[in-house]
């Protein structure tokens, strides 16, 4: 699993005995102690370790929560509150778990953007990247299932929206939907299977994480220069340091700083990342005014809602679902869509501009996902008033006004003549959230399907350093550091 020549030497009789039967200590030593790691990794590379901490935290707190949780539609909401009120430190465990989901996604998004920037998806790390996308998909599934469990208003109606999406798939959609829900509608049986699956998926994530680390340790880490560490003995010595203690301490520092941010949410604003409506027990008969997913799914929600038009025989709803899943599916093909041989965007000045555009587009998509799509961002002109009435010939007629006083005078005049007249608002043209979301969705797909494939063939990248060692020395020369 470590991908390099083992340097482990068992010292005691017991470890020699064990090593010849199950070399598990050797595996751990080669993977997490002696593993040669590029010496130039920056703090963006600490998020792998941070994510491992997030996963373990979620599993540990989740196992304890499951001991106290009741997966029935009558008991779920109250049992979550009972955990918060009567289980010793239950409030802490539950808040760590609910905020932990947000922290997990915050870290995974930074981790993914880091991979996009430094070209960590390129040969020889395609499988590593694809496994990462699989983990991301499993995380989204797990988060969605978990959000249903407290059985609040957003849980129920969010689940309704998501399962409704699957129902939009032609031919098989309704069957899959009923199979997922365990019946024709969301009810007790849905909650129970969601609970079961929510418990299962994290262990599947853990399994894929092991593969992910394996696939990382075969080629070794990428690094900010994108230049591979040399394999010969002298080159390897110059380019890398052993994982321990160099990266255990660096990752450790980053993890603790991350935990400080995590703790700030858990202890001082535990509900700020959630939605107030989820503290109202689920009521199928009352639909919340705005159904929005958790923040980490908002960009994909915005893509889903951005598709408001039919293309040929495919209607807008199905097209939205295709676009939303396509936004993730395209990531699987990224290693072959990016045609540039240069990994790091440090040496791709043009691509770097498009990358930062992509980051901004993703954040703005999140903003669009949270907003009401019909709300104007830039109003063009002002709303007008339209008085509708029946004219003397019995035809429908309208009269448009700017001022309310004039419109109501006209309406009252018509009414006094015995003619029914009503005032309605004619919305002025505006650049709305849905329009912004459409532009951003276009950019999102263009980035992967047009920009990266073409740019790699046309751009003039800057010269890459000959080795990590050279880069590190050059880096020091360019900005003289104080004597260390």
């Amino acid at each position, binding site marked *: 699993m470590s991908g390099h020549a083992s340097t482990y030497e068992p010292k005691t009789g017991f470890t020699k005995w064990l090593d010849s039967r199950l070399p598990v200590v050797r595996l751990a030593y080669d993977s997490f102690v002696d593993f040669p790691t590029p010496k130039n990794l920056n703090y963006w590379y600490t998020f792998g370790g941070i994510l491992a901490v997030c996963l373990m935290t979620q599993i540990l707190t989740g196992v304890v929560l499951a001991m106290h949780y009741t997966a029935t539609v009558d008991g779920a909401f109250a049992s979550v*509150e009972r955990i918060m009120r009567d289980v010793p430190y239950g409030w802490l465990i539950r808040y760590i778990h609910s905020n932990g989901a947000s922290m997990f996604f915050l870290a995974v998004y930074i981790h993914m953007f880091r991979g996009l920037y430094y070209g960590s998806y390129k040969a020889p790390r395609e499988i590593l990247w694809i496994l990462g996308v699989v983990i991301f998909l499993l995380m989204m599934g797990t988060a969605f299932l978990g959000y249903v469990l407290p059985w609040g208003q957003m849980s129920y109606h969010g689940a309704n929206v998501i399962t409704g999406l699957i129902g939009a798939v032609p031919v098989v959609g309704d069957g899959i939907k009923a199979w997922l829900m365990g019946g024709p509608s969301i009810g007790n049986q849905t909650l129970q299977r969601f609970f079961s699956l929510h418990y299962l998926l994290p262990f599947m994530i853990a399994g894929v994480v092991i593969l992910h680390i394996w696939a990382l340790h075969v080629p070794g880490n990428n690094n900010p220069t994108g230049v591979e560490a040399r394999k010969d003995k002298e080159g390897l010595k110059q380019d890398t340091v052993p994982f321990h203690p160099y990266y255990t301490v660096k990752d450790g*520092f980053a993890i*603790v700083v991350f935990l400080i941010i995590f703790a*700030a949410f858990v*202890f001082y604003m535990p509900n*700020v990342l959630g939605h107030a409506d989820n503290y109202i027990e689920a009521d199928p008969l009352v639909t919340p*005014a705005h159904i929005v997913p958790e923040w980490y799914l*908002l960009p994909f929600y915005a893509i889903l809602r951005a598709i408001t038009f039919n293309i040929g025989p495919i209607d807008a709803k199905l097209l939205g679902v295709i676009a939303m899943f396509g936004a993730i599916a395209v990531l699987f093909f990224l290693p072959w869509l990016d045609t540039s041989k240069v990994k790091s965007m440090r040496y791709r000045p043009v691509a770097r501009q498009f990358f930062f555009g992509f980051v901004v587009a993703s954040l703005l998509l999140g903003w669009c996902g949270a907003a009401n799509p019909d709300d104007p961002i830039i109003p063009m002109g002002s709303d007008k008033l339209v008085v509708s009435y029946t004219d003397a010939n019995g035809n429908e007629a309208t009269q448009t006004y700017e001022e309310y006083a004039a419109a109501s005078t006209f309406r009252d005049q018509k009414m006094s003549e*015995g003619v029914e007249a009503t005032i309605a*608002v004619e919305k002025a043209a505006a650049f709305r959230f849905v329009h912004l979301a459409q532009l951003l969705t276009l950019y999102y797909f263009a980035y992967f399907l047009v920009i990266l494939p073409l740019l790699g063939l046309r751009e003039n990248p800057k010269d890459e350093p000959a080795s990590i060692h050279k880069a590190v020395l050059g880096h020091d020369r360019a900005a003289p550091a104080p004597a260390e």
Partner: protein
Amino acid sequence: MKFLRFISAGIGAAAIAATAHAAGGSLHAHEPEGGWAFEGPVGELDMASVQRGYQVYREVCASCHSMRLLSYRNLGEPGGPFYDPEYPNANNNPLVKSFAAQDEILSTEPNDVGDYDYRPARTSDPFKSPYPNDAAARAANGGALPPDLSVITKARHGGASYIYSLISGYPSEDVFSTREIPAEETPAAESEAEAEGEGAEAVDGGETEAAEAAAPAGPTSETVLKVSEIDSSHYDFSKYKGELVQPVGQYYNPYMAGDVSAQWRGDPRKTPPGGFLAMPPQLSDGRVSYLDGTEATVEQMSIDIANFLQWAGEPKQSQRKSTGLAVMIYLLIFAVLLWFSFHRIWRNVKH
């Protein structure tokens, strides 16, 4: 500096999350003057206010609103309003016992012959609910279900400020007026006039009959409020020139989430904020006589009930903050130690 950049990335993501809470068409809830004592990382609940709030809940709110997730014992537990260090077990706290004993509840266990008796509540019992079930609650409240108040501060944007703003935010009586509905303006009369105008005689006969049947039941007067005359130090209502017709059994409140456009007589582009709710204004000066002698103004009672509900929504909030302080200090020291370890270990490696 690189390090600061990724922290700011995290804050950016949190800011995105915050926009998910863009509220509907109601006014933004505001704090009372001087803010809330429980705010901030070290803020603690004003327990005297929480105690008074419990009195307001018992004497006013509890006649319609349940608090099913709370038990009497919670009042005497650490962090609760009637916690007494002499009684670490809240079930022994005489004050809490007396609060419980004042309420008669239907026992949840059958008696010797299998019937369910009424008995005084025990400290372990949940707060007495005013109605046996939701259907009874709706029937007694004109079809509207008074929400359970256990987690109401967590279930509304604005939390305690929302409760405070809503309870004290009903328009004062002087902006209301009651008007007779002139006969020719009643809906029935209108449809009759319309039918005549179109000369559809067959329909005419039928509709007149219906109108006559409906006439005695229909309202003969309506309650109207002039929104532009609402006096508020928090919001300028003067731009809403027009009248709001208040439906029977419904009460306008600018802090209530909702949509009043159907009841608005005025420019439809400038519909006032807020909505209608089935709860009439509850508090008037002196509605309760506080045991601690505090003057029971509407403002004071609104603050107290909001403080009580803030506690009830999360009885462990003071424990959360005190634990948080210890955790933060621990993590900060840990981070500093790791920072120095990092620099020591890497001192001979250019990177």
